[in-house]
């Protein structure tokens, strides 16, 4: 009973497999913390690279994989203004991230994307920007920050508040130093009480409390918040209290995903697919969602 | 069977707060389905007959059910054995559950777990394996290994990995089942071939000496895979080799997972 492999209706266009990724080469890898690593990934050819950057807008995500292990969702952590390669930053949490972490320079992984919506930065020209990030959630905002800094003249003031549990948990330390040194960026770093080292020169305190102390005026300012659920939960009320409108406050949702293309059915919040309608949402949108865990 | 008395007892348990929830059976479109009674005045919906084969002890692993402890369960002897075994495996405290005991067309009243244990040992100490299942096991044992493998391959080919068997079984209470572990991946996730074989056989082995032969897994299987052939065979082996009588002694140690210096070591070569 061997199945007849003849197809009655011959496909009229080229067969495409939307689940088939492209191979990417690890061009560089960097340890951000003890368990967080950044990979710099080069495209297999100019055609793939061009196709990606024609589509890519900041805030979108991809699926990074290792054949035999599986795929994982992370944001693209590098901006569309830097078109020679892309970067991703992830914490080792399971089978796939362990395999990705073990890749050495010159070795390959797989990639699908870019997927999802993006931050509407073209609508933010001339506006001030406030970035609030916690721990391992800096990567999505890092892509926006570099996107803005690479087009610095088009935007107003840039303020960044970044916090982590301890000094050791701060990611992108060399870039933090670079942002700190710029006179057109206002960077405040903080660690949770007890997480400081002897030579720590930043703040000591939880992100929501430090935000209340250092936040810029809300007028003409877009706020972007990414962090662990508990940080988001306590930061959003502070932003609201400071006068940042919910419609101008952005965050990303990171629900479990498999397909990334609106089919596998697990990332939905209400009728919205985080993989299609997100991952970027305004707080105003989140408030209209059932149980968005905010 | 005195159904009126069962309903009356269920209502009284809820009314005087001795139980936060009564789980029994109700009739729906000609079939018996589990019923969850939270108010005394709903107890009249409870029914019971021989078609009520779901093992209600499986519900005790649900956090939202446990929140309503103590829970009273309509339980036939097999289900009482499940409860005793859950206690032996430290999944239940003695006062977590009350039993609305039914058996041999008799309603035995509201029992504590200790009383249910006594009833089991006095009245239901010899629950025979279903005769049809035994006959089918014998038929399989007459087969050559190749024939038997073919039989099981055909059966397991039907498995869709819906895990209804696992869900229906009170003893499948692991928070993360081996079939969902992927570091390493013990069992292929594909609902086909060796993965299906491995899943069904490994589940049976995990129940060796623990299966009380209630039949709920087989009844739950949408595909009609005769799971009790595996379970009853292993139950027989555990009984013959290790005197395993799961669910009769709330202090008993599990056959697999306990050690005795007199254990037969003849199989180690």
């Amino acid at each position: 009973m061997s199945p007849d492999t003849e197809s009655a209706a011959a496909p009229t266009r080229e067969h495409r497999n939307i689940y088939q990724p492209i191979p990417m080469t690890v061009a560089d890898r960097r340890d951000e913390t003890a368990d967080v690593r950044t990979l710099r990934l080069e495209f297999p050819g100019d055609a793939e690279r061009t196709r990606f950057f024609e589509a890519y807008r900041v805030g979108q995500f991809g699926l990074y994989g290792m054949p035999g292990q599986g795929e994982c969702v992370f944001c693209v952590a590098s901006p569309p203004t830097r078109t020679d390669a892309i970067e991703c930053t992830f914490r080792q949490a399971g089978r796939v991230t362990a395999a990705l972490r073990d890749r050495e320079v010159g070795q390959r992984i797989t990639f699908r994307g870019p997927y999802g919506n993006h931050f509407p930065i073209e609508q933010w020209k001339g506006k001030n920007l406030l970035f609030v990030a916690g721990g391992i959630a800096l990567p999505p905002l890092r892509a926006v920050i570099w996107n803005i800094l690479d087009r610095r003249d088009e935007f107003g003031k840039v303020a960044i508040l970044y916090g982590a549990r301890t000094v050791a948990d701060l990611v992108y330390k060399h870039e933090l130093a670079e942002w700190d040194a710029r006179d057109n960026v206002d960077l405040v770093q903080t660690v949770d009480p007890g997480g400081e080292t002897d030579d720590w020169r930043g703040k000591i305190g939880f992100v929501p409390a430090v935000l209340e102390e250092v936040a810029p005026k809300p007028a003409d300012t877009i706020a972007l918040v990414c962090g662990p659920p508990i940080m988001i939960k306590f930061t959003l009320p502070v932003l609201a209290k400071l006068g940042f409108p919910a419609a101008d406050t952005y965050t990303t949702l990171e629900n479990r995903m498999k397909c990334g293309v609106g089919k596998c059915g697990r990332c939905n919040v209400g009728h919205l697919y985080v993989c299609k309608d997100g991952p970027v949402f305004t707080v105003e949108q989140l408030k209209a969602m059932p149980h968005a865990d905010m | 069977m005195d159904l009126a008395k069962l309903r009356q007892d269920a209502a009284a348990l809820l009314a005087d707060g001795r139980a936060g929830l009564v789980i029994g059976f109700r009739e729906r479109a000609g079939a018996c389905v589990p019923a969850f009674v939270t108010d005394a005045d709903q107890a009249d919906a409870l029914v019971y007959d021989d078609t009520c084969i779901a093992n209600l002890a499986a519900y005790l692993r649900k956090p939202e059910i446990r929140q309503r402890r103590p829970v009273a369960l309509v339980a036939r002897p097999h289900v009482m054995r499940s409860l005793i075994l859950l206690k032996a495996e430290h999944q239940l405290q003695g006062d977590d559950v009350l039993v609305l005991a039914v058996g041999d067309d008799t309603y035995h009243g509201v029992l504590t777990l200790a009383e249910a244990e006594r009833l089991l040992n006095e009245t239901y100490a010899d629950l025979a394996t279903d005769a049809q299942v035994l006959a089918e096991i014998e038929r399989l044992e007459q087969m050559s290994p190749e024939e038997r493998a073919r039989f099981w391959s055909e059966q397991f080919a039907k498995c869709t990995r819906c895990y209804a068997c696992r869900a229906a079984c009170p003893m499948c209470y692991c928070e993360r089942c081996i079939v969902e572990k992927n570091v390493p991946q013990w069992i292929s996730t594909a609902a086909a071939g060796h993965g299906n074989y491995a899943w069904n056989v490994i589940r049976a082995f995990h129940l060796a000496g623990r299966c009380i032969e209630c039949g709920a897994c087989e009844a739950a299987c949408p595909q009609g895979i005769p799971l009790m052939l595996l379970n009853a065979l292993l139950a027989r082996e555990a009984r013959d080799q290790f005197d395993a009588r799961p669910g009769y002694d709330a202090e008993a140690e599990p056959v697999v997972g306990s050690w005795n210096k007199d254990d037969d070591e003849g199989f180690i070569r």
Partner: protein
Amino acid sequence: MKILDASKLSDLADTLAGAGYRVVVPVQDGDRVRYAEWSPGATIRTDAFPVNSAKDFLFPRSEVIDRYQLDGDDFTPLEVRPPAPRTVLLAVRPCDAASLAMLDTIFNWDYEDDLYNARRAATTVVPLVCTRADAQCFCTSVGGAPDSSAGADALLHPADGGSRLILEPLTDKGKALVEAAGGALADGKAAPDAPADVPARFDPDKVRAWLADNFEADLWDLLSYACLGCGACAYACPTCHCFDMQDEATRTESVRLRNWDSCGFALFTKHAGGHNPRPDQAARWRNRVMHKFSYIPERFDLVGCTGCGRCARLCPAGMAMLEACTRIEEEARKAPAHES
């Protein structure tokens, strides 16, 4: 009019198989009836409800969607092009045929899934009008009917008191099938039997209106107590399309599998970090009802349920979409949705 004796359905299956179709029919298999590939000698059963749905042949329960040759630390992608045999879904239920609108939509609403589409393009759908229904049937409550031609390329009507079948082609694929059937069909006349009487049991719009306002209702706890969290309903459901992707490898080759998955499983939405946005069975069962009766209607202007009733027939715990919906409608009557 093309007709055949009802007892000769297996001859039609034989003829179509001979003409190169993979013929999928409801057959007796042990003590169950299931849709399976026809093989001579099998017993066709149109009088009992199959345990599986027709989706099995368009969206199989496990499928290789990507494949690699592993070479030490590197890999080589291999082409994946699953077979898309010319298939006829013969004498399936109209509620199975109706479910294809949902599957076609989800696999094409944005990205187009060519793995599904290749099989779909090669499939001819020939439902058999139902002349009997059971207590779990509710197609008429969700826009269907026992004689619906939704999704059908041809329709089989029982006729002359069940002794004959009329085969009515509706599309080009249907006409091609009639042609392929050749002598298995005769020209003649027969009087179609009345379709089954399936009373409407609830109004999906009323259910949807209640759902919109009642994400947090206490009723969800009550409705979901019985659910033991398996995938029996989702896997039997003709419209459930959720899947998992899993890699498996030998030393030299790896495959990426697409396996059916279910929102009823606790692990379905659980994050790697341990957090679960649907932490209990009430949240998971609510998603199942919401998805079919609120999210899909809102997103795609379809009802995500065809009223086949398999979920209720197969659930080992007595959960039932029909019962949930009638209960919800009852609730909606008690406390009408806010008019805005």
